[in-house]
């Protein structure tokens, strides 16, 4: 009886037999199966190669630079005069430019971004959130070149009507616009951190008669603090690396000053200026490009590592 069953199947459709038969031609598949992991690992290594590439290009030319300009002079020099016969390379003017613009940016982005996050996460109805969030994301998606001209042609003249002493190119206006640009980043990451605080925490506080304001600042924000700080750090890193806005709106004066109404240059804008002029390989000017870029890279790298460290800690919390 078992036999007749088998036979019957064969006559109609013996899938099992077909599968067994195909098994023999599986060798290519087996090879694929074995090689794929290595192939994918190879692809994944590209990202590492990119980092190595960045570090290598920056480092090798930076070393040449430090042969011409002593390390110490570079990092303590207050004069940057890359062209002309008596060229001097001190990065401090660029560092102050970068740091001031970043400080201004976060002075705008952190309060507004955090308040927006609080509104979205704690106060807004689903409906409002659904409308407001994508709009904020549009703000993050606008090309920086557009912001640059917005700063130069709108924000600066506007500010000058309040602050007559403001230079037509200055670090204040691009700082503010950069701040506006990173508001969505602060808002959205902080909101994520706050929304991931369990609802039971809110309920617990509300049930004690707390107002939303008290719940927010005494329970939710402290609970989400690492995520919020991580968002700040990432925003800072973004502001440090921002290029076109400062290139266009802050001028290219390499003055060592803390006066935000003045024109000054950031590290990124310096890189654009020097490459725009295309310094010849081998000149100190050319190497200075890499030394500045290396400094910039290290700055943002440190910021990113801090952000990662903080948000990793944050994940462990509850």
């Amino acid at each position: 009886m078992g036999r007749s069953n088998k036979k019957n199947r064969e006559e109609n459709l013996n899938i099992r037999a077909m599968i067994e038969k195909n098994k023999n031609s599986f060798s290519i598949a087996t090879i694929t199966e074995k090689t794929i992991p290595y192939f994918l690992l190879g692809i994944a290594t590209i990202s590492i190669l990119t980092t190595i590439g960045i570090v290598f290009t920056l480092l090798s030319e930076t070393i040449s630079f430090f042969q011409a300009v002593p390390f110490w002079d570079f990092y303590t020099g207050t004069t940057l005069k890359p062209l002309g016969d008596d060229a001097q390379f001190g990065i401090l003017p660029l560092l102050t430019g970068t740091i001031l613009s970043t400080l201004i940016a976060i002075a705008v982005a952190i309060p507004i971004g955090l308040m927006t996050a609080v509104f979205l996460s704690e106060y807004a109805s689903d409906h409002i959130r659904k409308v407001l969030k994508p709009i904020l994301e549009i703000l993050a998606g606008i090309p920086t070149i557009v912001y640059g001209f917005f700063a130069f042609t709108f924000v600066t003249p506007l500010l000058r009507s309040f602050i007559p002493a403001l230079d037509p190119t200055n670090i204040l206006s691009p700082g503010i616009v950069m701040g506006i640009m990173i508001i969505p980043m602060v808002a959205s990451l902080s909101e994520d951190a706050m929304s991931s605080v369990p609802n039971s925490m809110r309920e617990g506080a509300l049930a004690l008669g707390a107002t939303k304001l008290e719940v927010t600042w005494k329970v939710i924000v402290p609970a989400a603090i690492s995520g919020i700080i991580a968002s700040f750090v990432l925003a800072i890193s973004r502001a440090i690396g921002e290029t076109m806005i400062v290139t266009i709106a802050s001028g290219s004066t390499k003055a060592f000053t803390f006066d935000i109404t003045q024109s000054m240059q950031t590290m990124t804008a310096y890189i654009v200026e020097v490459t725009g002029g295309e310094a010849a390989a081998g000149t100190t000017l050319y190497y200075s490009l890499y030394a500045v870029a290396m400094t910039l890279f290290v700055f943002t790298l440190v910021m990113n590592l801090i952000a990662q460290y903080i948000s990793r800690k944050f994940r462990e919390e509850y």
Partner: protein
Amino acid sequence: MQLHVDNRNANQLSSVDTSLDHNIVYDTEDLNLWYGNTHALKSITLPIYEKQVTAIIGPSGCGKSTYLKTLNRMVELVPGVRTSGVIKYRGQSILDRSFKVEELRTKVGMVFQKPNPFPKSIYDNIAYGPRIHGIKNKKILDEIVEKSLRGAYIWDEVKDRLKENAYGLSGGQQQRICIARCLAIEPDVILMDEPTSALDPKSTLKVEELIEKLKQDYSIIIVTHNMQQAARISDKTAFFLNGEVIEYADTNFLFSTPKDRRTEDYITGRFG
């Protein structure tokens, strides 16, 4: 010191107990509630008495938590909730728009199914309520913290680690911290939503013991899945089904001689 406080509390309260036994704290009349289109509570009418433990039982999804959250208007946090009918707390109609929920909630404490201490120190957890209500004096806060932790019978376990994060405690301890947090604002009523369902049997026992002690001081409304628990600790029991109150009676009475067939089916474990 602990014993002393306990005794005093017990004395004060047992005396109050008898005199106020039948005052109504919460009076619910014809309460209906919808989540969007879901009719979650259907014409609930239910008086709740002072200094008693009122248990609410019923199968999953019958509206127990919803009802409890309506009593301190916490249900409003869900978008799209609508209600009709009246709930009176000590004579005041609390569902009115003009009624200040924050004030209601300072008088009505709530304990949740999953322990939800704030990610702060034990001390700050307990002091949170008094602080938001304007008590800033360090000495008074210290006293409140100690008193509340004693009240929740957890003082001895945590007194040496008040500055530590509450998340370092076990689930049962956390739940008692939450109860202590409630006690710190000296509520009139305590709402408890399955306060032991996330706890192991040992912690459950501790919390049950605590509830029995608390009822001398507070009016307690407790939602539970556990029939034995309801039978053990409550004075009155309400049986909910599909958003309706099927039966409401003295606990002894309800468990021994249920009037409704569905109640009987439920308490004998035939469904749910």
